[in-house]
């Protein structure tokens, strides 16, 4: 019985939250990795793009709520998501036209592109704050739980509670749909394949008649969609705060690098590696230990790392990968 209780506790406090968080990181890392493979720079504005997209979604959600439109048991934000994606993608395309295109045409070095993306980050940062401010915002409505603690107890009779919040389930399902759609697009459609070709060998892609402007445009649209979805899911699951989205840049980069920057599969796997390490190392294992080792009551929390150091986990993994396998698990690009 205690073993089952221990498993329930692990599921409740580690597996479920880490899966949801991992899905959010994976979507963010996919955006970073796509920009990296097609435009060939690490996009420091990714976090703030996510924040901007989420801000737009929140405003539209409020609009819908004011008009009395709701999405039944699902959060209204999901209804607002397509609109947020369109606006964010439009912003990214505008940014590309005004800012990035010049550097692409002049073939600027990657580090200059990174610096340019820092400038874009500043601007987006300000735009997001103009739009929605700096405060913490909860915009989740609809049903709170798929399974709450009481239902669980009645269902199973176990003493250890398990809850599954609807936002967690929505996150995982949405992320799954998005990833399947993205991989289908990249591997099965002509445009998707042309993007992979462009990423593999730009000169040969040009020789084959692939239009670079079109590839870049599609890339930014997808990046906008991924950023908005990732940001909205993260905001629904936790809450929205502009600065948090800047900080999440580190785990997102770590996910992309661990998987192999430039490799979409790597970005997804990297996202889950980072999330499970982070949640696993910052979880207080006392309860699980008490269940598993009868007669032992640990003194402390049996927490390997205080939650304040969760970014240290991403960083340590990042450093280990840089030392031992700089191309990442899935052999990404090294330009």
């Amino acid at each position: 019985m205690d073993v089952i209780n221990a498993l329930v506790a692990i599921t409740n406090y580690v597996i479920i939250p880490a899966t949801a968080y991992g899905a959010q990181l994976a979507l963010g890392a996919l955006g970073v990795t796509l920009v990296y493979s097609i435009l060939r720079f690490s996009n420091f504005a990714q976090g703030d793009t996510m924040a901007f997209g989420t801000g737009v979604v929140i405003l539209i959600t409020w609009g819908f709520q004011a008009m009395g439109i709701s999405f039944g048991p699902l959060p209204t934000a999901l209804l607002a998501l397509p609109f947020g994606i369109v606006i964010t993608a439009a912003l990214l395309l505008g940014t590309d036209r005004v800012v990035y295109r010049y550097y692409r045409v002049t073939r600027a070095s990657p580090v200059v592109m990174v610096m340019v993306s820092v400038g874009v980050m500043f601007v987006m940062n300000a735009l997001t704050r103009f739009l929605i401010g700096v405060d913490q915002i909860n915009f989740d409505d609809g049903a709170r739980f798929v399974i709450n603690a009481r239902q669980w107890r009645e269902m199973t009779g176990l003493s250890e509670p398990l809850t599954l919040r609807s936002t967690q389930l929505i996150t995982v399902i949405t992320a799954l749909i998005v990833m399947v759609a993205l991989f289908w697009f990249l591997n099965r459609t002509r445009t998707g394949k042309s993007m992979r070709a462009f990423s593999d060998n730009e000169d040969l892609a040009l020789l084959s008649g692939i239009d670079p402007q079109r590839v870049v445009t599609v890339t930014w649209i997808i990046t906008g969609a991924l950023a908005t979805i990732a940001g909205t899911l993260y905001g629904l699951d936790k809450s929205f705060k502009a600065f948090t989205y800047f900080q999440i840049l580190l785990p997102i980069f770590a996910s992309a690098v661990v998987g192999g920057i430039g490799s979409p599969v790597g970005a997804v796997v990297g996202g889950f590696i980072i999330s499970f390490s982070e949640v696993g190392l910052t979880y207080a294992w006392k309860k699980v230990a008490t269940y598993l080792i009868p007669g032992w009551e640990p003194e402390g929390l049996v927490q390997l790392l205080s939650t304040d150091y969760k970014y240290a986990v991403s960083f340590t993994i990042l450093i280990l990968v840089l030392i031992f396998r700089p191309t990442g698990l899935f052999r990404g690009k090294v330009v």
Partner: protein
Amino acid sequence: MSFLNAADMTGGYGKADILHGCTLSVEKGEIAVIVGPNGAGKSTAMKAVFGMLPLRGGSVTFDGEDITALTPQQRVRKGMGFVPQVNNVFPTMTVEENLEMGAFIRTDDFSHTIAQVYDLFPILKEKRRQNAGELSGGQRQQVAVGRALMTRPSLLMLDEPTAGVSPIVMDELFDRIIEVARAGISILMVEQNARQALEIADKGYVLVQGANRYTDTGEALLADPEVRRTFLGG
């Protein structure tokens, strides 16, 4: 008028010219080979024909049309196929996807062309689901040639197709190139292995310092004692 006629090409990348009045021409269904010492401008001449080098003088006509001002992409649409010397495949895409990308500008059904390429290079059919980057050097060259054939070009240009492959694979590749030429496709090719290349060549060009030194049939060049001594190592 030849099928391809690149006359008096002069130009280079920076201030200094690499080509000094270089002239190349290829007839329909003919194999033309460019040989010469290192730094003679062989690859540069090829790039100039394909529009990858700005020309200061001279002109390129193709199938009776002046294409001097066209971009490489436009020349592909006119019926030129180009196989670069290196980085000539999409390494993380499968063999079949490489061929599909070769046919990117085609809007009709190109499955027949893929079948033709597989007939020409049977090994590629076997490896169609494998990533091109995982193939051997010779197989990769086959993918590269196959990719260029996907637009059904009337002129195929090969920049050192046998660089870095074993002699057996080289013979095999040359056989395939002859087969392509027999199908009516003109071939313009730069080669380091001058002797073997001239053996299959209808026409040979010996370039030195960006200008034509000798121009003749492959056979005649091989027989010329001066060419043998200076360029073919005796």
